[in-house]
């Protein structure tokens, strides 16, 4: 099942994607947001309601929002694909995942422009599987970690490369306003049979730039969930961006930085395709 948050006719809503449209769940459930519906254990209820309903609105008539409109936390994992790690920085196998937070305002929703900042020409893309947490957990053992997952989305973990190196931490280069994107929706976890067999394909103006399999992940999703939950409670709607395979702009010579007017898509089946244009920051 695909779950979506959206704006239609001046109102924020959420629902189930069905036949090119959406069955509006915010009109059928008491929960105000998809995050609350997930926290309220209403995923199976939404499935039941959607099965016997027709779409209320077409996907063509909505503005997409982040699947979780206001996540409390977004953690990202850096350098988590073997090939990518070898290209970007030579070094031995990592003992610990590279973890950093991003604020939601550093992303744009599906269909809206990603901003190429005034401060840099080095806007890059990173197509990633996004995990969406479904229930509260702390000190979650790896073998039970997937029980805490509501589903998966797509994250373009857009990065301003030269600002990664300003100062000792990568935060500025990972937190430019609207430098990445999240969406278009989430799929519930039952839709994915094998987390090691997802293929991430990023295209820029139709040219394939990234094409990698999740089998190349160094720190697997259950490990990452368990690790982060050692530090802090994970809550429904929290997101984890799980790292990107090779093929980012920086790896080309000369680098193929994103420029205004380009279209970028990240496809991960069976989740879908996250698409955005690039626009200069005004």
């Amino acid at each position: 099942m695909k779950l979506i948050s959206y704006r239609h006719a001046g109102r924020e809503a959420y629902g189930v994607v069905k036949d090119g449209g959406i069955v509006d769940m915010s009109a059928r459930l008491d929960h105000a947001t998809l995050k609350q519906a997930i926290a309220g254990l209403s995923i199976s209820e939404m499935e039941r309601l959607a099965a016997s309903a027709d779409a209320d609105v077409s996907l063509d008539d909505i503005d997409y929002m982040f699947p979780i409109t206001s996540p409390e936390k977004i953690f990202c994992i850096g350098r988590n694909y073997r090939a990518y790690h070898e290209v970007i920085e030579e070094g031995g196998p990592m003992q610990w995942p590279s973890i950093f937070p991003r604020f939601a305002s550093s992303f744009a929703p599906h269909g809206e422009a990603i901003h190429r900042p005034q401060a840099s020409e080095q806007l890059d893309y990173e197509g990633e599987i996004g995990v969406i947490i479904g229930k509260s957990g702390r000190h979650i053992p790896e073998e039970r970690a997937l029980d805490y997952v509501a589903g998966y989305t797509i994250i373009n973990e857009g990065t301003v490369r030269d600002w990664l190196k300003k100062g000792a931490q990568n935060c500025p280069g990972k937190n430019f306003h609207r430098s990445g994107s999240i969406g278009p929706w989430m799929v519930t976890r039952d839709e994915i049979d094998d987390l090691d067999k997802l293929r991430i394909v990023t295209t820029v103006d139709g040219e394939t730039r990234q094409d990698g399999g999740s089998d190349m992940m160094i720190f697997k999703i259950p490990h990452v969930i368990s690790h982060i939950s050692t530090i802090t409670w994970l809550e429904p709607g929290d997101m984890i961006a799980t790292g990107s395979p090779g093929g980012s702009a920086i790896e080309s010579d000369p680098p193929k930085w994103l420029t205004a007017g380009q279209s970028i898509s990240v496809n991960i089946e069976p989740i879908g395709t996250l698409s955005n244009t690039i626009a200069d920051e005004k």
Partner: protein
Amino acid sequence: MKLASFWVAGHEGFGAVVDGGVAELTGRLSGRQQILRDVLADDALAEAAQVVDGAEPDHALDEIEWRLPIPDPEKIYCVGQNYAEHIREMGMELPDSPSIFSRYPRTFVPHLGQMIMPSDSVQFDYEGEMTVVIGREARHVSESDALDYVAGYTICNDGSVRDWQRRGPQVAPGKNWEASGMLGPWIATADEAGDPANMTVVTRVNGEDRQHGNTNDLVFSAAYLVSYISTFITLMPGDMITTGSPHGVAAGFDPPKWLKPGDRIEFEIGGIGTLSGEVVAG
């Protein structure tokens, strides 16, 4: 004016600290603001000052339960390695760019709160810091204009789990431990707090002086940091930037004086006040 957020008699409120208590402002301004962040966003500090001028306290200080001064800030940025004397002491060069990372609000407890000793580390440390509270939306503001966007100042304990700071290339895991830091007790408005480039910063653990610095030693001033961060993201009312810590942290002693359950800790910053709390077992 000292502005605080709190629980009192079963409701959440905010107000100004006046002799021996708080004068409540919840819903009493013309905009009927229910949270302090909205007072900043609505540019209503001057009206708040008029209302509390000469006001009697509504509640004694021991009747309130302190909350974070802004309980739900959108963003909290932290700066590492920002006191010149301390950097030179460690034999390091002064940095060209600030080291910036972020923390989520739940990593902090309020004034008189209990920090939780991490379950997976003994290397629990404190960092007393002067913290800027943003008053107006700020993007691409110059250093000379930056303080116009500041509502006031508060105190942060950027509490750190040292071994987890070194697990992976980013410090985020050691800086985002649940209930590992403190924020508060209130926001001293810019007119009351005085010059942010000349505030004494003192930390005491169980009455023993540990940190002693002055913000006149900051490599990157409050004004510079507001300007710098506004280059990459839009700072919003209630966002906070904590400006780094002087020498004297637990890790700097031989052997290190790590915090442990039962420790009482105080952070005193001239012009703002004193933030106090204790450490409890996890």
